């Protein structure tokens, strides 16, 4: 998004290195993520795109041997700083995974879980509203409003993924990270998620990792291409897919790799 012609930057990664034990997975990544836009991260398996995504909400903390260096500024605050409250951080930065992973609880409980632990509702009525709004924003409400107290795991794959998105947005995150959110879904469910991504970017900044180049082209405004732990090229999606600057980018997106 631009304000007075200037790109608004939500996340600024500066010289990020990531190591798994002795093995370096990311090399000196510097990348600006534009606010209220969708940024797609593409690249072959093992290129580091998911690793980078996981840096943005400190998910790599749960891997003992993982070591992250460099700065990641979100709203100008370095989330790698010792003073960063990781629980608050993850309230601000939601995440949706490859495989839909609803809690083995009811639909209602799935969506209300986050707002409950963050104390976002003062009454049952307020919580009902949060659940309804979140499900509506996730384009799931109409399909499930009569069975909110049935288990979330009883939904179809596409519905489960939208439930996970509803769960992620229920705490009103500023940023949503999506790691291959459609790879387990059929084309119809994929289109629904893509439509949803388009809607969600009005209120959230979205970063999506995808193996589908066509999906990256369809949903994102900016694209970053990773290869062997390096950010090879980052720019507007339109430029990357029509006329990339880097030969490696071109070889990858045109299917000339290796």
């Amino acid at each position, binding site marked *: 998004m631009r304000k007075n012609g200037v790109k608004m930057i939500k996340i600024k990664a500066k010289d990020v290195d990531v190591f798994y034990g002795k093995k370096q997975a990311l090399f000196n990544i510097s990348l600006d993520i534009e606010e209220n836009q969708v940024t797609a991260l593409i690249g072959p398996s093992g290129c580091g795109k998911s690793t980078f995504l996981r840096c943005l909400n400190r998910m790599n903390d749960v891997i003992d041997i993982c070591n992250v260096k460099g700065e990641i500024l979100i709203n100008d605050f370095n989330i790698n700083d010792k003073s960063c409250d990781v629980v608050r951080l993850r309230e601000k930065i939601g995440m949706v995974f490859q495989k839909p992973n609803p809690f083995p609880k009811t639909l209602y409980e799935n969506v209300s879980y986050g707002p409950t632990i963050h104390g976002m509702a003062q009454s049952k009525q307020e919580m009902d509203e949060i659940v309804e709004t979140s499900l509506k924003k996730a384009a799931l409400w109409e399909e499930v409003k009569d069975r909110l107290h049935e288990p979330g795991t009883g939904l179809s794959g596409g519905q489960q993924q939208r439930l996970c998105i509803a769960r992620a947005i229920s705490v009103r995150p500023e940023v949503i990270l999506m790691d291959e959110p459609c790879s387990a879904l059929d084309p119809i469910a994929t289109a629904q998620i893509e439509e949803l991504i388009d809607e969600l970017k009005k209120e959230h900044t979205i970063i999506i990792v995808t193996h589908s180049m066509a999906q990256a082209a369809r949903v994102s405004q900016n694209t970053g291409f990773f290869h062997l732990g390096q950010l090879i090229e980052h720019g507007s999606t339109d430029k990357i897919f029509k*006329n990339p600057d880097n030969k490696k980018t*071109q070889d990858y997106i045109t299917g000339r*790799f290796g």
Partner: protein
Amino acid sequence: MSEAPHTVKSYEEELKNLNANIIKMGSACEDSLGKAIQAITTRDNNIAEAVIQEDEKIDKYETLIEQQVVNLIALRQPMAIDLRETVTALKMSSDLERIGDLAKNISKRTLLLNENLPKNLVDSLNRVSTNVQKQLKSTLDAYLERSAPMAVNVWEGDEQIDDLTNLCMQEVIKYLKENEKNLEDGTHLLFVTKNIERIGDHTTNVAEQVYYLVKGEYLEGDRPKGTEPIVTGEK
């Protein structure tokens, strides 16, 4: 194409094939234009007939290229350089098809002309057409070589064609004024001259496509223009 080959060989083949068809179509146009000019300047009706017949071949290339492009877009979803190859092939084929049509039209008029045309008019036609033929050849070479500078050269050369066309037009108008009997031949010659100029314009369009193909950006600025075209013979 200097790019590394695609992982999927059949895709690579399809793009190569598209490229080869553009080259074949371009050569067919070059050939038709050359023959059309030869027919009119040497007054050889057999050659003119051949040009008229060969236009069908050029039209078929256009249909074939269009089908290949639609298939590539539908089935391969080309990106970046491949996308530009695909889209420019479609645009180039439609300009080349028009070149074929115009060459055919020149030949149709050739069949209607009198045996003896004044030498100065034949020379004048030859001058414009030699230039246009050279332009068409350079454009196809630029495509083959994927050379943006060569495409720019062609683009800039269009100005000279405009000037030569106007000179030629003036001579035909003079010829028309000389004698009422010249009316029929003179009118055909005006159209022939205009057709040659139009071929030059389509050639310049193709050159612009070559530039876009190579650079991924459009040639900026107005196309160079020669002297104002003559609308009527009255000064």
